[in-house]
């Protein structure tokens, strides 16, 4: 059976409704080097990178791969503004992004059109300058533009800005295409991708793990927990706790407009970001929507939508007269310190965590995948993830 046949079969299984994916056959026993839980961009990228290193991989996704936060996010491919501990993996991810069209078989609308962080005041601009200096050792090149330079370069911006910081190699992509395609790339590289199947239980078995998912038993040497906002369900089975919360970014999008935004935007500090997609629609975010504690529903929030409209008009006056045609949100795992956990569990040998990206996972995902694959394959990674390790949440 070729890989394509396997995929087609999996799809047919799903379609027939006879089983929730391949794993649902009670007789199925699967063994692999690594079990990846969660088919978002982080899990898919990890599975893909593991396969490139020759490890056998099963990826289990309870829904459809790449359909949660990985596909409903803003779609920014942004390095600048990342917290410094995130920058090494962000830089690594950016190198993969350049090559992603080849990996995914489509550019997925990735365009490095530049990203500008806007400063509302001189103090903001000074903070952007300080960040530029801090980020330089990581190889991130940022251009500080003062008010007049910003206006010359981006005449469509609002008038009262003190300046901005341009990262020319940042940009955006269509997350609804990138993330599902990553899962497909992992499958094509030989990972067994099982969709529509939840991991109900996972336990220690000898040196490795035994997971029960949709009636199947999956034995693995390593276990990677990248189940996004739902990752605690896996961590708790090993008695691990993390201060993981959830956020619900409120997104709005306009009808298609003539192309005019020549860069992606973010506001220094917080609260507003925007980009114009190739189709012409302007996507805007920056305020939080609503969700519930059981992580099974989320809704755009009217106050957030109106706030985003008001901010958008302020920073992008050309939106006056345009219409908002849709709003949405998604469920994102997030930590209080605004950074994910990436790395080995401090308690369970062979267990690795990569979750709680708080909205940064889309850009970071490909880099995290490679770093995780190195960690598992070699026990160490070339990428400095020391500031992201799960150990930072261990009780002192």
């Amino acid at each position, binding site marked *: 059976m070729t890989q394509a046949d396997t995929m*087609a079969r*999996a799809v047919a299984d*799903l*379609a027939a409704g006879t089983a929730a994916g391949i794993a649902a056959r009670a007789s199925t026993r699967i063994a692999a080097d690594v079990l990846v839980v969660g088919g978002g961009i982080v899990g898919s990228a990890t599975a893909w990178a593991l396969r490139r290193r020759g490890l056998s991989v099963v990826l289990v996704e309870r829904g*459809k791969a790449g*359909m949660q936060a990985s*596909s409903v996010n*803003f*779609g*920014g*491919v*942004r390095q600048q*503004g990342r917290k410094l501990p995130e920058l090494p993996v962000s830089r690594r991810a950016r190198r993969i992004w350049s090559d992603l069209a080849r990996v995914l078989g489509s550019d997925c609308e990735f365009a490095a059109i530049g990203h500008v962080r806007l400063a509302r005041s001189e103090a903001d601009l000074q903070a952007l300058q300080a960040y530029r200096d801090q980020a330089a050792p990581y190889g991130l090149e940022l251009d500080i533009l003062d008010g007049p330079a910003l206006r010359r370069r981006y005449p469509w911006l609002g008038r009262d800005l003190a300046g901005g910081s341009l990262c020319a190699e940042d940009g955006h992509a269509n997350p*609804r*295409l990138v993330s*599902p395609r990553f899962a*497909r790339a992992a499958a094509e590289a030989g990972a067994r991708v099982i969709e529509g199947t939840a991991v109900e239980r996972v336990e220690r078995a000898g040196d490795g793990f035994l997971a029960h998912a949709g009636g199947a038993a999956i034995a693995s040497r390593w276990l990677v927990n990248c189940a996004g906002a739902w990752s605690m369900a896996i961590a708790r089975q090993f008695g691990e706790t993390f201060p993981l919360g959830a956020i619900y*970014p*409120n997104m709005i999008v306009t*009808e*298609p407009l003539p192309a005019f935004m020549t860069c992606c935007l*973010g*506001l*220094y*500090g*917080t*609260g507003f*970001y*925007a*980009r114009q997609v190739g*189709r012409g629609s302007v996507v805007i975010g*920056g*305020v*939080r929507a609503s969700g519930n504690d059981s992580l099974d529903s989320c*809704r*755009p*929030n*009217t*106050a*957030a*939508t*109106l*706030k985003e*409209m*008001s901010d*958008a*008009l*302020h920073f992008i006056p050309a939106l*006056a*007269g*345009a*219409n*908002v*045609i*849709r*709003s949405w949100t998604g469920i994102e795992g997030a930590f209080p310190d605004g950074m994910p956990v990436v790395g080995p569990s401090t308690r369970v040998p062979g267990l690795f965590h990569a979750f709680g990206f*708080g*909205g*940064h996972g889309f*850009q970071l995902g490909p880099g995290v995948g490679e770093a995780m694959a190195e960690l598992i394959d070699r026990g160490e990674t070339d990428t400095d993830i020391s500031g992201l390790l799960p150990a930072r949440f261990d009780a002192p």
Partner: protein
Amino acid sequence: MNPQAKETRVVIVGAGPAGVRAAQALVQAGLRPVVIDEGNAAGGQIYRQPPEARRRPARALYGFEWKKAQAVHQAWQALQGSVQAHTRTLAWNCYRGVLDLHHPEQGYGRQPYDRLILATGAMDRVIPLPGWDQAGVYTLGAAQISLKAQACLLGTRPVFLGTGPLLYLVAYQYAKAGARVAAVLDAAPRQAKLAALPDMAARPAMAAKGAYYLAWLAAHRVPVIHGARPLAIEDDGASKVVHWRDGGGARRATGGDVACLGYGLRAETQLADLAGCEFDYSPRERQWLVRRDAAGRTSRPEVYVAGDGAEPLGADAAELAGEAAARAVLQDIGVGGQQPRLDAIEAATARMRRFRRGLETAFAWPAELAAQCADDTLVCRCERVTAGEIRQAVREFGLRDVNQVKSWTRCGMGRCQSRVCGLAAAEVVAAAAGEPSTEGVGRLRAQPPVKPVPFDAEAWSRMAASNGEGAARQAGGTAGGEGR
């Protein structure tokens, strides 16, 4: 009446036949409902009232139905002072007991409710064909609204295509108003209409009207073709040429100055969806309808549906359904409602449903036209997605849920939010995925706003000011980062 019940905030969305009768029944029971409607005046689409300057006698505007139209308008007039009416107001979202509103001059607003009656009506079902997205191609509903509201013919030599009772009614109305109708191209074959006769006998007067339109068109030498399979609409510079295949399989072409198409009705259900109502698939309509009891109670205890937005049964049924929903509200808040009257409405509605079954037999939604449309046919006009792209998403990526297809292809993501293309797109997905009906490919979830709403610089600060800390806490206090 207990004073608490009287304070119940009942909000009705839609002031067509269903909404007006719902308001009337509530006012009769001593309540003061809020009525929200997008139009300038009550009447809905079917009994739409022209602006003052375009007023014409009811008989000229509404034909056989003029007395019913007048009765609905008069009922509405009599309610003035007893209802809180917001016309020209779009209800664009509905969540946790609050409707979000927009008015072209007053801007954004919010309307809380204890009970909500959704009488949101229906719109044309569309099947895409090459050329349907060009200027000069309209829906049947649009053609009729232009005539009713503006006394304006979209064209003087229109070609009407599609199927359904509206096809004949609009052709008749256009011809009576002076248009030279080039042709009526009905996709449904003649036999289907004969097969429908037993059910249509449930409402002899309605069936007779249909027969009258047909006879009138024949007497006025308007070409009416049954079983015409539309192929494409082409603009040859001078006219719109509709290419079609006749029952014998021969290619034909009919030229006119505009083409108007429609294939029956689809219920406008987005607000019910946003309110959290459950849906059931209707195999007969091949669309998802809000789950409800005979009186219009939905799965949400505070939400009721009535009229064509619940189930497209036509204006007479809508009047009854509006009244029934209001009576259900009254029962549920403990102020009567009169069960015998509800039973009578249910019995009358059953007859109308049987007639409707006849219409669905006579003018069945030709699902295969959508399912088999050529790969280069534009299915989603707003985002310019072709049938071929949808099929590729199904084939290559194993997508078989319309929401996934939307996410992947952008089909239904644009201005119309799939209101126009959604049903046809579902047929394309179902056929490509080997599903016998569109039930198997799921239901497109609604996302606010249900229709486009404009940017407004002041709305947020106004809302924050009027809501005090609530709104500020809701939004301003939770700024959300700089984007991924």
